């Protein structure tokens, strides 16, 4: 199995690249006009969850859980047929 150093050698540059992509994405949102929708606070909340995952939860799981719908009852109808990537507690425009 690879060591921590091996994992850094394999993935550090890629992760660094993606971290800068996230930072520049957030800067881009800040810089442009208009209002961000529910995905923006959801994204920021997921970032915070990644940095401080609950005990027994990995960082990746914490991000998934932060962005997931936690309701338990089947929906009455589909509404939109696609997924946004973050759970929307209220329909857009409501």
């Amino acid at each position, binding site marked *: *199995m690879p060591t921590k150093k091996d994992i850094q050698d394999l993935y550090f540059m890629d992760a660094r690249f993606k971290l800068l992509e996230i930072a520049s994405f957030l800067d881009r949102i800040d810089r442009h006009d208009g209002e961000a929708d529910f995905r923006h606070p959801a994204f920021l909340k997921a970032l915070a969850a990644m940095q401080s995952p609950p005990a027994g939860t990995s960082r990746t799981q914490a991000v*998934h859980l932060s962005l997931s*719908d*936690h309701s338990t009852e089947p*929906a009455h109808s589909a509404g939109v047929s696609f997924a946004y990537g973050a759970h929307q507690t209220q329909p857009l425009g409501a």
Partner: protein
Amino acid sequence: MRYIEPHAHMVSRTTADYQAIAQVGCEALCEPAFWAGYDRASAQGFYDYYRQLTEYEPARAAKFGIKHFCWLCINPKEAEDPVFAREVMSLIPDFINQPTVLGIGEIGLNKNTRNELLIFEEQLEIAKKYDQAILIHTPHLEDKLKGTRLILDSLKNAQLDRERIIIDHVEEHTVSLVLDAGYWAGMTLYPESKCSPARAIDILETYGMENIWMNSACDWGISDPLAVIKTALEMKKRHYGDEIIEKVIYRNPEKFLNQCPNFNL
């Protein structure tokens, strides 16, 4: 390096993709029935689709030495209208005995609606009636956790052999729900969603190499028919030997699929 592609939607891919996966060692490929990128206007559209899955694609794959198998169902994305869905489901018995049919799939949920769940459960009954294995689609992104839980709850009541059911598209927050309940799990390798090769290997390292496969699920969207073999190469980078890589990309899918009477290599 030989491998089995256990989930690919070749009706949406070019013949050059068959050539490419054959060149890197694909010996067999399994194609679940799914959404084709558009809603079909009539049940007749599914009749033609089932013919494509059972007749045309096996012949196209055979030109490159690949054995092509398929699963039949109405997918959850087109199952919101139960009347339409039942009309499509009534076609399944006409095709279920075709020599390359593996079972019922990929059934499941898309937006976790009552009607999707109703049709999912009716298709479980079809699988039970015809003694078929089952391949299950879990929803995308924010809907996956809830959908996986609803599917597992529904399966609890269905009294089916859990070893003949694979629940696909698991990720870090759903994989243990599936494996701990005694089902097989599938990981899908997508460039923009689901699992990357690195994350798929993380899941293998965390949850073990048993009762799990990985697939490209290549289709009409952004996807990569070579994703399985690229993940095998990623495993090599992490110092995995040929034996364990072959287990994940060949022997695991072979073990599950051998439960389907029509599967043979």
